[in-house]
């Protein structure tokens, strides 16, 4: 579930555990071959019901299935959105889950231009491509076309959610050496946490004291020969606190891609609080026999928007009782009730039992894509939309843009922070609006004096209210007068005027001067 706005910055301090570039051990390249049908192959390898279901792999066989992942990546530049940044090297781990198929973390292969895999004990590098990537749950499936890859290696199979305090093993290629590393620890916690890759998505995760270091990302965590998770992040400054993505999240990813496309999570969009206060329960007339959580607000445009209301009490989800702290019993663990919605795919329904107006009712909620999630996440493998006119560079406000300030909370303008993190909650009536920011002014005579307006939100362009980047383009098509464009910044932030003829003349010159191929990439 996307849960960023209620706790901005909650993921700070947790970092993905991909490693910086590690030199390749060998330079013998494989080559791409025809791709196989993915879904069936994955399930055959990943499921515990295959023909080898009863034969659990030995430690040696597990280690054979673990791969090191060397990546050359090139992220997009959100400050100069028409270009890419410099290439950089990164590394991580992964493991074979089917013929030619490797599971790893999304953050290991994000923005990848080249991916090279090496199986443990086999120095031959193999080219891989990203078959599917789920940034929201930090998982990716890689495909290697070369049939020699993994030949004779038993793909690993997925197990269940491990119990608390049981032992697990983590395999991977963390920094500090080229050989495979295996560490052991116990399951400390099973809970929802923010996945640091996007900084905005919360899912089930398992905390362990098994060492998870940079480079471990994407490696398998096993228990009794079955994979119970994918190592993915740790908390710097805390000793022996690592996290892995458990199999319910992995299984959901694999189910989602069966139709050949990853659709992501539906978002219930419920901001809830526990239901323990006796006065509150009395006010709502909630019988003592019922437990649940009260809905404080519903994220605009999320699946629950328009169906659930502030003050509703969610008492059950798909027949599971919701406790007063918002948890349900899930494989013996107390986890957030949202887990049952998490398992569903977009287009599927979840049934909530709700206490409203002193009556119980059932509300089927169809899960749908949450459009605001894209602006709230750190984005990867995505070309940032922008529009340039007369040296004025416009973008929709997004998490990735705020990250160009380094630490946004220290360096970004307050107005942008308020707009990004709070406005949709505090002013849900404006839920369709996506704030557009004048991010830069590329200096030229025609825009003299306008750099001071950089990083302000645009209110109107030639009288057209700006609710998205396309409105800016539309606004410039219809000048307020024959001779001038008029741009109003929000909050009485000032009025910018462009001489239309001069701006048109300068436009191309500015693009050439600043090495910009295209003046727009629209969403």
């Amino acid at each position, binding site marked *: 579930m996307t849960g960023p*706005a*209620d706790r*901005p*910055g909650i993921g700070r301090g947790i970092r993905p555990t991909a490693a910086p570039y590690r030199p390749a051990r060998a330079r013998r390249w494989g080559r791409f071959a025809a791709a196989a049908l993915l879904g069936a192959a994955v399930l055959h390898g990943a499921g515990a019901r295959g023909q080898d279901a009863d034969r659990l792999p030995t430690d040696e066989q597990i280690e054979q299935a673990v791969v090191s992942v060397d990546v050359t990546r090139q992220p997009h530049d959100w400050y100069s959105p028409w270009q890419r940044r410099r290439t950089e090297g990164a590394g991580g781990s992964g493991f074979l889950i089917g013929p030619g198929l490797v599971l790893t973390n999304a953050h290991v292969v994000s923005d990848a231009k080249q991916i090279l895999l090496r199986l443990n004990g086999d120095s031959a590098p193999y080219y891989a491509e990203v078959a599917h990537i789920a940034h929201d749950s930090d998982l990716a499936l890689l495909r290697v076309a070369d049939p020699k890859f993994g030949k004779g290696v038993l793909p690993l199979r997925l197990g269940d959610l491990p119990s608390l305090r049981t032992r697990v093993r983590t395999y991977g290629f963390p920094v500090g050496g080229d050989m495979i590393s295996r560490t052991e620890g116990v399951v400390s916690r099973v809970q929802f946490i923010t996945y640091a890759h996007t900084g905005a998505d919360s899912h089930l995760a398992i905390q362990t004291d098994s060492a998870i270091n940079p480079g471990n990302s994407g490696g398998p965590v096993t228990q009794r020969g079955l994979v119970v998770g994918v190592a993915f992040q740790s908390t710097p400054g805390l000793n022996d606190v690592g996290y892995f993505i458990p199999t319910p999240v992995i299984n959901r990813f694999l189910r989602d891609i069966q139709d050949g496309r990853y659709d992501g999570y539906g978002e219930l969009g419920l*901001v809830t*609080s*526990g*239901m*323990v*206060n*006796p*006065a*509150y329960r*009395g*006010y709502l007339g909630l019988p003592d026999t019922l437990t649940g959580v*009260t809905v*404080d*607000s519903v994220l605009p445009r999320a699946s629950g928007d328009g169906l659930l209301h*502030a*003050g509703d009490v969610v008492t059950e989800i798909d027949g599971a009782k919701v406790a007063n702290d918002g948890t349900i019993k899930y494989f013996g663990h107390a986890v957030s009730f949202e887990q049952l919605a998490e398992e569903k795919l977009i287009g599927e329904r979840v049934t909530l039992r709700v206490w409203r107006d002193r009556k119980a009712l059932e509300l089927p909620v169809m899960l749908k894509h949450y459009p605001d999630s894209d602006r709230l996440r750190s984005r990867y493998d995505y070309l940032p939309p922008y529009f340039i006119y007369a040296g004025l560079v416009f973008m929709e406000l997004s998490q990735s843009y705020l990250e160009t300030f380094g630490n946004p*909370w*220290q360096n970004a303008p*307050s*107005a942008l*922070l*308020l707009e990004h*993190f*709070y406005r949709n*909650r*505090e002013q*849900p009536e404006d839920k369709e609006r996506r704030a557009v920011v004048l991010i830069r002014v590329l200096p030229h*005579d*025609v*825009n*003299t*004096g*306008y750099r*001071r307006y950089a990083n302000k939100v645009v209110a109107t362009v030639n009288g057209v209210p700006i609710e998205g980047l396309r409105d800016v383009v539309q606004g410039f098509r219809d000048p307020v007068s024959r001779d*001038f464009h*008029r741009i109003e910044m929000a*909050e*009485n*932030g*000032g*009025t*910018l*005027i*462009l*001489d239309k003829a*001069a*701006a048109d003349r300068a436009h191309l010159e500015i693009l050439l001067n600043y090495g910009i191929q295209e003046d727009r990439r629209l969403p």
Partner: protein
Amino acid sequence: MTRHLPKAFAWALALLAAQAAWASPGPESAGIVMLRITRQTFDPVYPWNKTVERRYLGNALVVEGDLLLTTADMVRGATQLTVRKFGQYPNYRAQVALIDHEVDLALLKVDDAAFWQGLHRIPISERPVEAGKFEIIRWRGNGRFQQGTGEIVDYRVTNSRLGAMEFAVLRGNTTMDSLGWSEGLTEQGQLIGLVTGANQREIQATSGQLLQLFVQAAQKSPFRGLAHRGFGWQPLNNASQRQFFGLAGMPFGVRVTRTYSGGTGAEQLEEGDILLRLGAYDIDPEGQINHPLYGPTLFTMAINDSLEPRLPAVVIRGGNRLNLTLPRTRFSEADYRIPPYSTEGAIDYEVFGGLVFQELSLDYLRSWGSQWEAQAPRRLLLELSLRMRREPDDPQQRVVIVSRVLPDPVNLGYDNVNYGMLLEVNGRSVTSLLELRRALRTPQGDYHLLRMMPGQGRQQLVFKVDQMPEANRRIRERYGIPEPLTSAADVW
């Protein structure tokens, strides 16, 4: 005769002479005194408590009218002020005669006539020194007078530390350490500044011009002080802008973008006005004027160029040139949604159901310590940054927050509303503690319903009316909270 003395004796005499010169301060030492402050403020987090008193040493300068000039920040919250001249016993009791947080200046009076004997004021120089060296004078805790030197960097128009007033601040470099305690800056025997802050080797000081204005303003009754700018503006330095607004060929004029709820021009200017001239100065398209003291500087300096009660202005409005007279006014407390300082000693608060309600203030945010701008609750910091001042006709007087939840059975489960902003109580909008108290008189049936700003934890809080008298009594007793200062006790 000396030449007949033994060499050792001559050296000894020379050393004594040097010591005497070092121990006997120059004439400036009679114009500055040592200030001892005992400060105890109310605890912004537990506002019924006072913090542990702390003692500070600073300086104050002798000014006309047998008064001492220091910074407001030095003496705010002072429970005892004493001064000592020439770094020597005795101490004299001082009192705050006038404090102006907006300009961060205060005047102190000392009733004991003996104190003033031997002291004389250092003349204040209005004219800024554009470049070169200055002297820094101060008293140290060991009773020694200290003089050092520094170099002027520039004068910069900036906002006052606590309020929203704009004036020129002297910036300089020095090798002296531990500055920022109202030290005096002098140049050729004249006072050119009062140090208000220091960061390693950089210092900031209130300029002599402002010191002089403040001292002059203090002599007038009632004290009107310096004035605020009551409007927002934008430069018009783009040729297309000037053409569009009909200013082509005209070398002057900036644009008014908004007016505030108070301050100079708030009522006379209108959004969209082209401000051509303010006071005695034509305003260039970038908002600069040619000031006789500061040279090219921001036009807002014209607002406090003198203490005249009115300020002439020339604007273009709707294509017509208008001559306006702007009363020079300053913000009142009511013009702030978030007061940047407190003019009263005590902090008003309300405790209901274990929730401590306060009106958001800068003092509250500063209670997070020296790193408060990074560590205070983010949503509240944004509120301060963006909405400190009220808009004209803004119905919101203050921002009422839950500053603390004192755990009790009646607020079980409400612990996540810490630092949340209160919107409504019992269906009524709440924008002040007074409104909160009134709203609590009209519960909704058997319950009090409180609604918080969305996105900051629980949005609705419910309390049962018949439980509250006992619960409030219990909470006050358990947490040692005195009875409310207001007469609201009968509400519940």
